[in-house]
């Protein structure tokens, strides 16, 4: 068989940078969580909570999330197509431009240049950088697929292609704005329309960035890590098409009880509940792949990351539809419950799957075996415990907060003032801060392990390096 010159160097560089942005995400996350309990940690004007929170979310979604997807897509696309990248030069440009974009994003957000739209805070010049980045990436992936030497496209490639077009449509429509100056623009839409477009974007950013790409990764790396093929091809097909069909109807579940037309809210609610089916299609596909392989949960640390990851995805996609029901939304919307939901997805599902994929690639990109599996296990437990403390404390906090906001006396007056409910949150916010610190230690263990591997791990056998 003819050997292919896979470009692993670009994969390694993207991984290095995505981990750096991941550390920034977590550091800023820990900082803002302590700012909520110790407001004197706000250093005006640049380092206030209002300016730092978007840096945290953007670094998480674009730096750590998308940065890792760049790496893993470039790896998967070459392997699944049994061909080298279409353009190494373009990929190199993209790496450089990715870092330039993230740095520009961070600096402009610190300076207060923001559109205020969640997950789309970047002002128009930075938007243009994001578009260039995405076009470069999409061309390289699509052209590599076009010149592939494997006729059939594997599931992971479907999810990749869908997220390439999905992100493009979402981003461009939500970016419509009229510039006033270099760093200030006004949205092309007003009021209720603007809100509806924004959350059509916002929720589908979850679909096209925090769901489809990690699913692509999961579908590729679970069989690789276990040696067992995905349970059902047909289930993959049904889950894929119904997922990308249904997601787009659900944006208004972020806007229940607001002035958005009722019928839009009702559609969003209905489709959110139906979305359980395609989401759990993938969960079952993962679990059933493990039939006869469950002993690997003990023997193979990669499987632990992947199976816990898909489990959190499963929980996330049950909790999400629940939140999308009007009655439940009236209760928990705007409360601490919601960051609990978000971080089960972000710290649990997305990050666990990314950790597994990166560990799997270690022998290929460093040419060495992982320095220490016990350290990888320690990493696993620290991030798991950190995340559970984070989410569980905030779910309890959110329920208590919601209860206090809605409590009424017999004479029809409110039982609690805003501040009476507010002060009850402090203990939970402390707990969340502690959870965050544990998670941070977990990430540091991960990085130490990778550095030790790169510096002096045992050389990996040729066979594994090239397999």
């Amino acid at each position, binding site marked *: 068989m003819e050997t292919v010159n896979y470009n692993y160097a670009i994969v390694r560089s993207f991984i290095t940078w995505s981990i750096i942005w991941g550390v920034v995400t977590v550091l800023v996350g820990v900082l803002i969580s302590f*700012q*909520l309990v110790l*407001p004197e940690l706000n250093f*005006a004007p640049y380092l*206030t*909570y*209002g300016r730092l929170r978007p840096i945290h979310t953007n670094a998480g979604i674009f730096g750590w999330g998308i940065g890792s997807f760049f790496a893993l897509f470039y790896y998967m696309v070459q392997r699944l197509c049994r061909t080298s990248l279409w353009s190494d030069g373009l990929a190199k440009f993209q790496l450089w431009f990715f870092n330039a974009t993230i740095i520009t994003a961070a600096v402009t957000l610190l300076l207060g*240049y*923001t559109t*205020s*739209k*969640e997950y789309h805070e970047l002002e128009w010049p930075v938007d243009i950088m994001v578009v260039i980045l995405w076009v470069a990436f999409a061309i390289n992936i699509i052209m590599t*697929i*076009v010149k592939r030497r494997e*006729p059939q*496209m594997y599931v992971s490639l*479907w999810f990749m*292609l*869908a997220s390439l*077009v999905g992100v493009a*449509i979402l981003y461009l429509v939500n970016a419509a704005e009229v510039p006033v100056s270099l760093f*200030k623009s*006004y*949205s*092309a*839409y*007003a*009021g*209720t*329309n*603007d809100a*509806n477009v*924004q959350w*059509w974007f916002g929720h589908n950013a979850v679909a096209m960035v925090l769901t489809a790409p990690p699913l692509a990764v999961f579908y590729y790396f679970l069989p690789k890590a276990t040696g067992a093929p995905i349970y059902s091809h047909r289930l993959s*097909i049904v889950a894929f098409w119904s997922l*990308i*069909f249904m*997601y*787009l*109807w659900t*944006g208004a579940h972020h*806007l229940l*009880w*607001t*002035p*958005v*037309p009722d019928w839009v809210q009702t*559609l969003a609610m209905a489709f959110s509940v139906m979305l359980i089916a395609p989401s759990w299609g993938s969960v079952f596909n993962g679990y059933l792949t493990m039939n006869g392989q469950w002993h690997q949960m003990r023997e193979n640390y990669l499987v632990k990351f992947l199976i816990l990851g898909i489990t959190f995805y499963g929980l996330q996609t049950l909790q999400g539809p629940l939140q999308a029901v009007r009655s439940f939304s*009236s209760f928990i919307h*705007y409360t601490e419950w919601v960051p609990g939901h978000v971080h089960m997805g972000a710290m649990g599902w997305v990050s666990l799957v990314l950790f597994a994929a990166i560990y799997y690639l270690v022998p290929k990109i460093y040419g060495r075996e992982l320095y220490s599996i016990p350290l990888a296990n320690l990493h696993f437990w620290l991030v798991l415990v950190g995340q559970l403390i984070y989410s569980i404390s905030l779910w309890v906090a959110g329920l208590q907060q919601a209860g206090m906001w*809605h409590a*009424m*006396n017999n*004479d*029809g007056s*409110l039982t609690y*003032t*805003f*501040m009476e409910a507010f*002060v009850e949150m402090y203990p939970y916010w402390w707990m969340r801060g502690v959870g965050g610190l544990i998670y941070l230690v977990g990430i540091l263990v991960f990085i130490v392990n990778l550095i030790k591997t790169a510096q002096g791990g045992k050389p990996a056998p040729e066979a594994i390096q090239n397999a």
Partner: protein
Amino acid sequence: MSSHAWEKKPVLLLILATVTILVGTIFTMVLPFAWVNTEHDRIETVSPYSPLEQAGRDLYIREGCNNCHTQTVRPLVAEVLRYGDYSKSGEFIYDRPHLWGSRRTGPDLARLGGKYPDEWHYQHMVAPTSMIPKSNMPAYGFLNDNLIDPDAVKKAMDVLGFPYSSNDIAQLEGKTEMDAMVAYLQKLGTGIPWRKAAEVEIIGELVNPFPKEPTAIAAGELLYAENCAACHGEELEGQIGPELDQDVYSDDELFELIYVGVTDAGMPSFASLGSTKVWQIVNFINYRETP
């Protein structure tokens, strides 16, 4: 294994995926434009932002206040009691972008305008904990140090197509960012005359249910510290609001003042506390031990 054409043809897959994505998009994102911001939504009394208010709005965006504050009141009993009349679509037609937000770390601000006197905001923005000791809101004193740039505001007004006079722009000279922020905050939610409509009316005779009871006085003391001290002083000596240590009001007059408020003069209504708590405050003010 049999496979479908799209599994072998990337361009076909891309086209099919795009069409699939566009269906829900068209129904739930494009179509609503025909329903929203139409004649049907219009509210006569809602007006565009003045130059000073718009400048404040841009600062609200710059500082990311929307990361802690929402600006929509939902039509839920507790929410309307706490914040005021629920939000209507027509109130937001001049909001580009919308600032509804997704988290209520701090209270909703959709109906803030007129709730407090300007002076309250000037003090609160500089040092939130001086008014509300347990607050975690960052201090924004630096807004006092920066002047707003009239030319930039004029350009913004042109892009937004809001009306203004050259006099409006001239008057921006010397205004600080804090002035703009306070002007914006006082505009919020005032597009409809909801405050008058929501004003509580007391029907029937008022009788102090626990006159001079020590437990009521003690409870009232705590409630006073939490709800009133920021404006009337810790020792009732007066600050933003007048001094209350002169014992000039009878129990039922005092109850009515607190329960109904003097909403156009900066004294908020405290009806949402419920009558029991308001009577406790009355007992504290009129029957506390004075040194």
